[in-house]
C-alpha cells in the first residue's frame, strides 16, 4: 500500500503509524522521517518558508520514487506527505514513513525516498526573512546524497 499526499495542513504521526501498521502482522519495522522548518539556512533569521509545487507532476514523481524503492527493498507500506503553502519555523514540512519486515530495509528505503524527493520531486522553497524573501538554491550535497545510491550495492 502506498499513500502520497500534498497538503497545506499538518500531518499526524499517529495517523501515519496506523496506516503503516494496521492489519500488517508482517511489518516488524517502521521508520519515520520528518523534515521541519529550521531557523537558519542559506539566510540567517529565517522566519518561515513558502513552498510551491507542480501539481500532477509532483504526485507522479513521488509515485515513481516509491516504486523504485519497492523494487529495491522488500517493503510493506509507504506513506509520503509533503506540505505546501506558507510555513513557519518549527512547522513540519515533509513526512516519509516506511514499514517492512526488517529494519535494514525500512531505514534504507526511507533515506532513499528522501534523497530522491529532494533532487527529483518538483517542489521549490522560498525563505522568508526580516530582510525579504529569497528562493532557495539547489545544493550539491543533496545531489551527492542521491548519487550515492547509484554506487551502493543493491540489496
Amino acid at each position, binding site marked *: 500500500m502506498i499513500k502520497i499526499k500534498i497538503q497545506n495542513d499538518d500531518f499526524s504521526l499517529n495517523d501515519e503509524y496506523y496506516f503503516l501498521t494496521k492489519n500488517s502482522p508482517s511489518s516488524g519495522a517502521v521508520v519515520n522521517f520528518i523534515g521541519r522548518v529550521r531557523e537558519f539556512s542559506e539566510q540567517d533569521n529565517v522566519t518561515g518558508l513558502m513552498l510551491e509545487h507542480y501539481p500532477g507532476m509532483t504526485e507522479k514523481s513521488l509515485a515513481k520514487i516509491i516504486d523504485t524503492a519497492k523494487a529495491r527493498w522488500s517493503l510493506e507500506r509507504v506513506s509520503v506527505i509533503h506540505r505546501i503553502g506558507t510555513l513557519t519555523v518549527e512547522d513540519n514540512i515533509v513526512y516519509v514513513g516506511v514499514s517492512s519486515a526488517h529494519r535494514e530495509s525500512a531505514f534504507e528505503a526511507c533515506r532513499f525516498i528522501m534523497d530522491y524527493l*529532494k533532487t527529483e520531486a518538483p517542489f521549490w522553497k522560498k525563505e522568508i526573512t526580516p530582510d525579504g524573501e529569497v528562493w532557495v538554491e*539547489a545544493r550539491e550535497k543533496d545531489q551527492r546524497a542521491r548519487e550515492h545510491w547509484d554506487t551502493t550495492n543493491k540489496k
Partner: protein
Amino acid sequence: MTIRVLFFAKIKESLGVNFIDLKLTTPTSIEEIRNSLFCEFIENKSLFLPKNSLVAVNQEIITENIMINQNDEVAFFPPVTGG
C-alpha cells in the same frame, strides 16, 4: 503549432507569467523551445540556461534534446528544493 510552456517558482516569479504560448514549426525540440524562450525573454535569458533550469515533458524530467509534439506538456523550472 502552438506549444504552451509552463513556468514555476523563481522562473514564474521573475517573468511575471505562469506560461507562454510559443508558435513553432512541427515537430520541434527542447533546444528549439529553449532558443525561443531566450528570444521572448531576452532580459531574463539566464533563467533558461541548462544550469539554471530543468525541463519536464509530460511531467517527467528530460535531460536529452527530445522532439516535442503538439499535445506535449512542457515546463521549465529551477532545480528543485523540496523536502
